């Protein structure tokens, strides 16, 4: 069933707004992560819905609170960027024996749904605030931050699960499912553009402009896998615990050159739940509160169908300025950087927009930074969670790890003191991001 989304006025999408009104009034405490799987095997107990329930129960347990205390939920209903079933297609046999069903059968299978969760989690009996954070967990997180800061919910679950059906990820829906092409697909789909093609094109232009090369990505991608393999909840740790080397990366097969197989993240099944609350209530939670100091949003202002390097740079620069303005900190305050990486080739646009570890450089320096010590042991930890690249496609490992880093309990804990972090997703010109702090200031 449709629940409201945040009004546009909640999103901080322009400069000049000053310090965020909610700064220091919202904290994250408990974190719960489900097991991962490459694809759904069609058993009810491994479904998207089952994983979501596991994640929520773990988050509540992690926070050391009673389910009675949960009075709000913000959920990202979309559970893939690839193939979904029609919402009304029937559930596999046996699903309705295990779970209570809502008015559309794909709830808990290829769609997240607040009503489905509440129906199947009777212990959540005090949830009054229900809102969807569409498309990306980043939106759910910024929405929940506003909701708590505005007093609309006091203890709020923020939830996003992912399904991955058998078969090829993108084939069978949208333009690819039609023998004629209409809508936006008419301009992109008819050329046969794989998902990474736009990013590959802009990366190519970036290399052309700044004299960089795809090989310079290798240390970053290898480091991300190393960080990911420290995470017991990550897909690679659980299912493919093998380190990759620079040579593996350099010999990876091209998907859309210069994007190779390692530059594309691996679709998986997984769910995450996080608990947001007020600093006052967090006093009795079992985990150290991590403060949300600001959030911001960018959206495309495209003049053409294909974005350009200039647009991506302008948009991510604006994101950096908005985040710092509202949080009252600067790039030099960041203890680590965890912007989105799925595709790996656009991570540096985010990083440079934030001027992370810049020594005065504005643009074109990130691939040089990747040649220095970007490990969790070093002075400039880049993507300490390992991100999508090191853990599988969720668009939330980096958010999760900001909380864990600032609580001092990340499986890939940085060596330097963790005081401020940043995470956001997804595209450089279509992004929702947050600044996190170990304290309220």
């Amino acid at each position: 069933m449709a629940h409201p989304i945040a009004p546009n006025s909640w999103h901080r999408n322009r400069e000049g707004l000053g310090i965020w009104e909610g700064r220091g009034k919202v904290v994250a405490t408990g974190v719960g992560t489900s097991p991962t799987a490459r694809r759904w095997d069609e058993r009810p107990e491994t479904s998207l819905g089952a994983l979501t329930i596991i994640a929520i129960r773990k988050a509540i347990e992690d926070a050391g609170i009673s389910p009675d205390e949960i009075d709000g939920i913000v959920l990202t209903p979309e559970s893939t960027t690839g193939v979904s079933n029609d919402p009304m297609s029937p559930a596999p046999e046996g699903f309705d024996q295990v779970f209570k069903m809502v008015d559309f059968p794909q709830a808990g299978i290829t769609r997240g749904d607040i009503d489905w969760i509440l129906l199947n989690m009777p212990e959540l009996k005090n949830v009054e605030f229900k809102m969807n954070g569409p498309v990306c967990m980043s939106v759910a997180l910024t929405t929940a931050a506003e909701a708590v800061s505005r007093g609309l919910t006091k203890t709020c679950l923020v939830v996003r699960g992912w399904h991955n059906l058998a078969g090829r990820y993108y084939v069978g829906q949208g333009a690819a499912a039609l023998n004629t092409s209409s809508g936006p697909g008419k301009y992109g789909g008819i050329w046969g553009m794989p998902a990474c093609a736009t990013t590959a094109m802009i990366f190519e232009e970036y290399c052309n402009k700044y004299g960089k090369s795809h090989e310079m990505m290798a240390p970053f991608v290898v480091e991300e896998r190393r960080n990911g393999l420290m995470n017991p909840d990550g897909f690679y740790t659980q299912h493919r615990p093998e380190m990759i080397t620079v040579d593996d990366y350099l010999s990876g097969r091209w998907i859309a050159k210069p994007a190779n197989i390692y530059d594309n993240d691996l679709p998986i099944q997984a769910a995450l739940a996080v608990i947001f609350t007020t600093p006052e209530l967090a006093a009795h939670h079992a985990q150290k509160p991590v403060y949300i100091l600001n959030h911001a949003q960018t959206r495309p202002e495209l003049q053409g169908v294909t974005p350009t390097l200039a647009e991506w740079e302008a948009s991510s620069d604006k994101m950096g300025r908005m985040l710092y303005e509202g949080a009252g900190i600067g790039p030099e305050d960041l203890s680590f950087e965890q912007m989105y990486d799925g595709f790996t080739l656009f991570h540096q646009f985010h990083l440079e927009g934030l001027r992370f570890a810049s020594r005065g450089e504005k643009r074109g320096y990130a691939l040089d930074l990747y040649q220095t010590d970007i490990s969790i042991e070093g002075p400039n930890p880049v993507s300490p969670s390992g991100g999508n690249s090191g853990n599988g496609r969720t668009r939330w490992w980096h958010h999760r790890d900001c909380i864990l880093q600032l609580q001092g309990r990340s499986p890939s804990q940085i060596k330097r003191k963790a005081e401020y972090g940043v995470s956001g997703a997804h595209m450089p010109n279509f992004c929702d991001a947050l600044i996190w702090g170990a304290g309220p200031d």
Partner: protein
Amino acid sequence: MPRYRNGTQPVPFPTPVTQPFWDGTKQHKLLLQKCSACAHVFYYARTHCPACLAKEFEWVEASGRGTLYSYTVCRRAQSPDFAEDTPYILAAVTLEEGPRMSSLLVDADPENVPIGGPVRVVWDDDVSADLAMPYFTPA
């Protein structure tokens, strides 16, 4: 005429807004919209000018010349419809008139594609009875 498609790919389905563009392709005319209020030239087809939001515009024929903004060599097709064509070169072309458009770069060496180099439009008529597909080739 050359064929650049294997015949399995999706065929564009014109809408009322895009119909003039696709009608133009049949006559090998690459049509763009030009705002009557501010003279902004734009692609893809829209109901109003993205620069000033005016709703009056005329269709103007592009020269078909441009430069390669960037490209990617696709070796794993987006869908089985395109599988026979790999490797193919996806291109972003900056037209002489200003707008950028996505297309394919055809009759070019995937190992040697110059960003910023000149390109010109070529047409594939073997698509449907109603339209032709604009591709680009090094000029």
